């Protein structure tokens, strides 16, 4: 396996606010390798933004170390910055009275791109995010999605080895969000190490190689995506609807649970959770449906949001 490009070890961060101490991160350790997308999940206030800030050298860790491309973010911020691109979510962080081109040019300079490179990359970078036509308009006339795309261009113009995205799809319509995901996927293909926080679970499903679950300032899960989904305890949900009197579920085989058999106008509905597909399960469902007056049957794969809701909501 490739060397990790980002390595966090025992990172903690607390804030002293009016004598009270708020702990955002307790102790966080993880690695991101080249060509890998790690998504960080967590409820509001779980510490995702704090983690992004620390990785981008905006905030010093209270304890622990982070190496970005071999540079310590606390001791050698310049070295770390040279390898890092950051994409902020939301529509702030731009000089709104100036044009998109002016913004990109200035922030490109700030992110360390040289004179000649900058001149060469500017048109292509604007083109890539679909802003070539609007490049010379003031950003205050941009829509939310256009501003977000400008942030993306800014984050990418330095061709970073490490890309940090904090809720990059906030406020984007599905088409824009998909475009952003394509851009991130391209960068991964080029070998960047990418960390992405999001509340949009579609981002996670489409992009993530690994999922980090943050809870109370700790990483509760650090798993490959399929494994994370499996952790929810079932891989599929089967919903059966029928007419007449609801049949009794009877004796359930191993790996099948039934949530409820509910009355719905004039009929009933039963939901089964399956840990996997095996002979026993098929036989059971077949028997159940043979005894009943079935109208329809729907099968749904378990998804990230099931996992997220379950893990985030779980106690302990």
């Amino acid at each position, binding site marked *: 396996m490739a060397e990790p490009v980002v390595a966090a070890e025992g990172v903690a961060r607390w*804030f002293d606010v009016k004598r009270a101490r708020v702990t955002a991160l307790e102790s966080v350790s993880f690695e991101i390798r080249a060509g890998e997308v790690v998504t960080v999940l967590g409820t509001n206030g779980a510490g995702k933004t704090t983690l992004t800030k620390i990785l981008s050298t*905006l905030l010093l860790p209270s304890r622990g170390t982070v190496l970005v491309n071999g540079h310590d973010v606390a001791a050698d911020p310049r070295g770390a*910055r040279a390898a890092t691109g950051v994409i902020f979510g939301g529509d702030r962080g731009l000089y709104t009275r100036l044009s998109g081109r002016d913004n990109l040019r*200035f922030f490109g300079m700030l992110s360390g791109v040289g004179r000649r490179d900058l001149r060469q990359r500017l048109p292509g970078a604007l083109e890539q995010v679909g802003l070539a036509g609007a490049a010379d308009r003031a950003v205050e006339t941009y829509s939310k999605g256009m501003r977000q795309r400008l942030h993306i261009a800014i984050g990418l113009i330095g061709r970073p080895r490490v890309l940090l995205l*904090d809720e990059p799809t906030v406020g984007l319509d599905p088409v824009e969000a998909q475009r952003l995901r394509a851009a991130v996927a391209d960068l991964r293909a080029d070998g960047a190490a990418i960390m992405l926080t999001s509340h949009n679970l579609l981002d996670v499903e489409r992009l993530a190689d690994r999922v980090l679950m943050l809870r109370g300032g700790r990483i509760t899960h650090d798993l490959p995506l399929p494994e994370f989904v499996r952790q929810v305890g079932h891989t599929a949900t089967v919903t059966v609807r029928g007419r007449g009197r609801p049949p009794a579920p009877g004796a359930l085989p191993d790996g099948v649970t039934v949530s409820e058999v509910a009355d719905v106008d004039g009929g009933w509905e039963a939901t089964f959770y399956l840990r996997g597909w095996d002979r026993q399960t098929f036989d059971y469902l077949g028997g159940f449906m043979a005894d009943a007056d079935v109208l329809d049957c729907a099968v749904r794969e378990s998804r990230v949001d099931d996992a997220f809701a379950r893990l985030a909501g779980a106690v302990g």
Partner: protein
Amino acid sequence: MTTADLWRAGESVRMGVRLYLAEYPPRILATTVWPRAVLQCLFLTLLGRVVGGAEGARFAFVGAAALIVTLRTTTGLSDMPMRDKLYGTLPRVHTGHLSPIVVLATRTVPYLVDALVAVVLCLLVVGPVTGNAATSLALAPLLPLYAVVVLTSAAAGLACAALAVRAGVDELIGNGLSYLIIAVGGVLIPPGVLGWADALGSVLPIRHGLQAIRAALAGEPWLAHLAAELGVGLGWALLALVTVARQTRRARRRGDTDFY
């Protein structure tokens, strides 16, 4: 300093000019900003005549021509460091390849140029209108001294603005400093009338520079005054430097940079 650093600083100046023109489009400069400077100079010169006759008017004119630079420096710069906080661009400025103090310093360039333009306009308009045309002519070769005053007051303005950012009192500090300079800067009231005013004025920008200008007008030696003005300006510049550096470090330690 490498050529790459120079290029970066140049890009930052360019950005400063863009931001300045977005804030003050030429139309606004021509219809409100510059007329205001000229009218203020005119008002103070006439006030000088009211209290001190023709000699008073001349004294006030020389002072007012220097004082109006504060419109673009101590007052004008007061909200400049605040700008990045408002836009939410501070995180990028703080993590950029150009030190935040260089970004700030280069952004003052259009303000400095504009301040000097205002001085020239005052010499062109107010001098002739108030019967001080000869003084205007005599002051023309002393424009470099006015330029020094522009620089030193900009340093003070930047330092105060940087100090005011956290508390959000930029408007108060900027305007307060400007009025303080009117009151004790030897602009309209000759030095030596009020002891405490002299003491306070001697650490403020403009006062010594103005003494240098007046001395040069009178054909007296003025280098010592100039040196004093430069010293005061350097002091304020150092204060600005230390303040911004401290704030940058503190933002990283405390996480109170507005993120997004």
